[in-house]
């Protein structure tokens, strides 16, 4: 390397230290991403390949995991299989080659839809409630504002299981057990604290002068809020919405204790994708991959606001 050793500023580290740093960081990144890559690959293995010893890096790709994820199957005798009409579709042929027949669709699609409905429903409500509350905290002198804000945050400190005990009893009384409405309300309540804190930060950054100018021009306070502040806060609202959605999407403790069928989401469902003799790993890996793709897209979209979201707006960069 021919870099001159003279006068490097601290802001610009020397190229040698940069090289060492990049090697170390890339090594860590590769090691840390290996488990995820492995799961992704396992989704394209056949069940025997997935549990081969030693673990197989090279294998013939197969979509059996995905077929197994979306169907229920039963093993049949060769005589019975021979008596059936020939398979109509490629996936039937694949299942038939394992001496099995497709019984019907699995529950993965309804579970995925539940995740979507509960995720989007609770996010929508939490962001609506959070936006107006954040605006009030940001612009008006609310008595005991700090106490209220701390109270809102402290609801997040309760262990979910502790909250789940009375919620379980409450939902049983109200007939909300295992309903999407119940889960939407619950997740909304959990997310509202995040939404208020994040959005207050975003609102604080919008200069008051904008609405004041609008109000001088004849807007009422509410018109100024809807026509001036909201459009300015779009990015913040979108980022907040994504954080709420990710929480609802990933949540497990409430989901596993309060739902069993009707309203079950993906996280409690994925560990119970069973094949013959334990978990069907290619199917579990396929489900994990499908489940992770939306999060992957969101992470890339959110990159700039990530820090704010994970620290409740405490660090804004």
């Amino acid at each position, binding site marked *: 390397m021919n870099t001159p050793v003279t006068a490097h500023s601290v802001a610009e580290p020397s190229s040698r230290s940069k090289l060492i740093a990049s090697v170390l*960081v890339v090594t860590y990144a590769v090691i840390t991403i290996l488990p995820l890559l492995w799961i992704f690959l396992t989704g394209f293995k056949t069940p025997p390949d997935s549990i081969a010893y030693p673990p197989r890096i090279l294998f013939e790709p197969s979509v059996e995991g995905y077929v197994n994820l979306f169907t229920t199957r039963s093993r049949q005798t060769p005589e019975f299989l021979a008596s059936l009409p020939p398979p109509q579709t490629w996936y039937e042929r694949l299942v038939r080659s394992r001496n099995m027949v497709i019984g019907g669709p699995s529950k993965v699609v309804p579970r995925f839809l539940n995740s979507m409905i509960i995720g989007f429903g609770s996010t929508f409500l939490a962001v609506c409630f959070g936006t107006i509350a954040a605006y009030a905290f940001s612009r008006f002198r609310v008595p005991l504002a700090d106490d209220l804000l701390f109270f809102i945050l402290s609801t997040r400190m309760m*262990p979910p299981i502790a909250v789940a005990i009375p919620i379980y009893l409450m939902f049983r009384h109200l007939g909300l057990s295992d309903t999407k409405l119940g889960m939407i309300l619950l997740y909304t309540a959990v997310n509202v604290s995040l939404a208020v804190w994040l959005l207050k930060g975003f609102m604080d950054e919008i200069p008051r002068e904008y609405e004041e100018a609008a109000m001088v021009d004849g807007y009422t306070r509410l018109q100024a809020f809807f026509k001036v502040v909201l459009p300015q806060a779009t990015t913040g609202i979108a980022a907040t919405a994504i954080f709420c959605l990710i929480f609802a999407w990933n949540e497990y403790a409430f989901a596993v204790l309060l739902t069993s069928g009707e309203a079950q989401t993906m996280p409690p469902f994925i560990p119970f994708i069973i094949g013959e003799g334990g978990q069907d790993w290619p199917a579990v890996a396929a489900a994990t991959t499908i489940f992770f793709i939306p999060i992957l897209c969101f992470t890339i979209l959110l990159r700039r606001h990530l820090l704010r979201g994970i620290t409740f707006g405490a660090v804004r*960069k």
Partner: protein
Amino acid sequence: MSTLAERAVARTPRRLALRFGGMSDKAIAWLFITPSVLLLLAINIFPLLWTIQLSFTNYRANRPNAVLRYVGLDNYRDILTDPEVWHAMQTTAHFVLWSIALELVLGFGLALLINRRFRGHSFWTTVILLPMMLSPAVVGNFWTFLLQPQIGLFNSGIALVTGVDPSSFQMIGDVRLAPWAIIMVDTWMWTPYVMLICLAGLRSIPDYIYEAAEVDRASALRQFWSITLPMVMPFLMLAILFRAIENFKMFDMVNLLTSGGPGSTTEVASITLKREAFEKWRTGYSSALAIILFVTVFGAANIYVKALNRVKQR
């Protein structure tokens, strides 16, 4: 601006304008805050109060018609003298302390390296961030696969590096290794979190401070101890606060990875709580435990936030 304002006024639905047009700021403030507060009262505070009430009873949720008896502080006394609860608390403390220590060292180290701004650092940062965005439950589940002796990726990887037989140890089946398995998976998942916060701390230090130190010929080590570390300290403490609260409540990842086993070696407090509440159905007893856990987190967080503010003020 005035034409814009007129157009906007014209476009606001008439009825809405009429109904809210004359509202005072104070009325709007309350109107805006009420929905959130009501929701939190209904779904957080009311259940909390109910839990407090239940914690003084012998209520069992699977026998709703049994006679409800108030037992005073008996549940609390039973919990505080129960060796199993103390064991769970120790397990939790071990998990929280070690996972935070490892995450701090790795996260801060990575942040220092990424702060060198080498080519492609932004891409690699995003790659490193991915694990923490996943669902902890799904993570716990697929790590049971990765940690299986023989067929799992982890044991084979270790075998490749160290040469030991991959089937000679099992991370989740072994009483000694299982507590480290949950720490390891937590560290894998949450190191990026600490890293991200540290990175923000490092970027908040203005360059001129280092330039001044350079002029004074302060060594790199001296610069780290006297500038970098104190300036990043508030950020580090914030990271510790958030991780400690989260890991103290940890349920999902551990429940799926080891579900407290083998034996009760990885039974953290939340898992004990789940067992008491939803397997043994001792609702009164578990309510008391829930209150104790909540008070612990809440109290510790309060003390910690005060310390944090003192560091920030310095």
